[in-house]
């Protein structure tokens, strides 16, 4: 079981909960190669709320996202999305749920997640066509979302390879939002982008949150989540070791890994005193 449970903030009533994960275990591999990726993780995200999930490579943060989308099966625990218990869903039910566009996922590398043979516009329109919406109406909606993401309309006729990294990431976000999802999972959406594009993506995240979408923002960098998230959950070796408001976690981290994260995040405050502290925390974690 986890040491920490991430409960919703006090003023959020239960009916606004969009995602509720309880005691989630995920295993990879079979028999002797079976390894536990997630160990009793609990997380709740309400409409209009942004929750940051922080962890190092291999901590299980992407596995959490994949489990919520039904891409990896849960070995224990419960996942409830928009009031529906999806834990025991079969392949068909998952497909139906994904097609409705209630849950959307933006991957880290849009060059690999966007179909290279579809133009940006076709990629954005596709989820709407799957829902049975007419092409003309789908196009109108795609254009609206493209402008909201500051994508000029002529860019929609280009293939992903003909777009810059920032433009591609915005196309991926537009594709995710066009179905009016109630839950969006962003997996390192800004880490591969330079500062100007990163600011733009983070601005979009803020707008989404204001529009009432529940957001899960996955990153290895506490700093990039700090500016946009309301609460953060810290994953370490498959367990949720710390959770709370951004301010509390940053100013008063409890777990040694969280303390190391806070001391490692680059800030404009120069401090060589942090170096000895970091060394001590690393020794503690490696022990």
């Amino acid at each position, binding site marked *: 079981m986890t040491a920490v449970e991430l409960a919703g903030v006090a003023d959020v009533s239960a009916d606004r909960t969009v995602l509720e994960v309880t005691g989630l275990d995920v295993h990879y591999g079979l028999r002797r190669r079976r390894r536990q990726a997630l160990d009793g993780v609990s997380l709740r995200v309400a409409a209009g709320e942004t929750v940051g999930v922080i962890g190092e490579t291999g901590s299980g943060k992407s596995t959490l996202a994949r489990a919520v989308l039904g891409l990896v099966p849960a070995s224990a625990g419960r996942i409830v999305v928009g009031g529906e218990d999806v834990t025991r869903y079969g392949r068909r039910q998952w497909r139906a749920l994904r097609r409705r566009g209630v849950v959307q996922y933006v991957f880290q590398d849009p060059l690999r997640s966007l179909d290279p043979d579809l133009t940006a516009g076709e990629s954005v329109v596709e989820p709407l066509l799957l829902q049975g919406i007419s092409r003309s109406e789908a196009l109108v909606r795609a254009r609206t979302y493209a402008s909201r993401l500051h994508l000029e309309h002529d860019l929609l006729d280009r293939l992903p390879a003909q777009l810059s990294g920032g433009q591609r990431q915005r196309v991926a976000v537009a594709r995710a939002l066009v179905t009016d999802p109630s839950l969006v999972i962003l997996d390192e959406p800004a880490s591969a982008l330079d*500062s*100007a594009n990163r600011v733009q993506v983070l601005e979009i995240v803020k707008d989404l949150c204001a529009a009432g979408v529940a957001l899960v923002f996955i990153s290895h960098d506490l700093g990039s989540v700090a500016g946009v998230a309301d609460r953060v959950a810290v994953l370490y070796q498959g367990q949720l070791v710390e959770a709370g408001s951004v301010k509390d976690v*940053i100013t008063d981290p409890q777990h040694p890994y969280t303390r190391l994260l806070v001391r490692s*995040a*680059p800030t404009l405050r*120069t401090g060589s005193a942090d170096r000895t502290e970091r060394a001590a925390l690393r020794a503690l974690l490696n022990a």
Partner: protein
Amino acid sequence: MTPPSEHSVLERSETTTGETPPTPPAPSEVPALSLRDVRITNRVTGEEIVHGVAFELSRGRVVGIVGESGSGKTLTCRAALGILPPRIELTGGSIHLAGTDIATLTPREWTAVRGSTVSAVFQDPASYLNPSIKVGPQIAEVVRVKKRVGRREARDRAVELLQAVHLRRPEVVYGQYAYELSGGMLQRVLIAAAIAADPQVLIADEATTALDVTVQAEILDLLASLQERAGLALVVVSHDLAVVAQLCDEVLVMREGQVVEQGPTSEVLYHPRHDYTRLLVAEHEQYGLDKVLARVDAS
């Protein structure tokens, strides 16, 4: 990393400086690396890409270069290492490595200078290691060639170097292949190889960009300890102002080939004069950890 032909180097020395290099003074007074009005031009298009970069770096000091992709920071570093891409040339100013004008160096001299005077680590460490040779022997080879020592001594020295970059169980790492190591461990292996021949200057070009934040801090701490212990002069290149702020005495902010701001780190961070620097600072204040920290300070 094939050195340019002797012909092109000779040509360049004539077109750029046209004067005989000064005889190097005593090593203690000479800056480890000095750039004067460095200009880099694409010979094919005739377009100047870097418009005058200048700084002086003494032993044990750290200079940082910040800028977005395409700002010319990497080309400036490559010029100092004598590894500019084909048809991209140093067309103005001068670069001195430990008092020697690099324009006067022959390919053979360059080979001697690289590794023992100036060395570098880059982003994506895996691509600089041979995947089919264990990592230890690749460091030992550098020691053997540069230090002219026997195989056994080179091996012992390589293990020492792996220890010096804080790799746990260095003997085990010595016998591992690149695919068995994480990104942070690989970057340490490359730093070990880079400092194997005791260089005066180490250039770290986006060396921590692809790493997790905690690993990035570990590598930056390692560089800082090398700089303090071994008196290494460091050039730290990053697109992130905060990374540079952790380590550097002096910062250059580059944009579109131009140095738009240059000065002591605290001056650049707390009293930025150029709009672009202000933008970089504002980004941290609005979206980074600094936003939360500032709010805490205020309350």
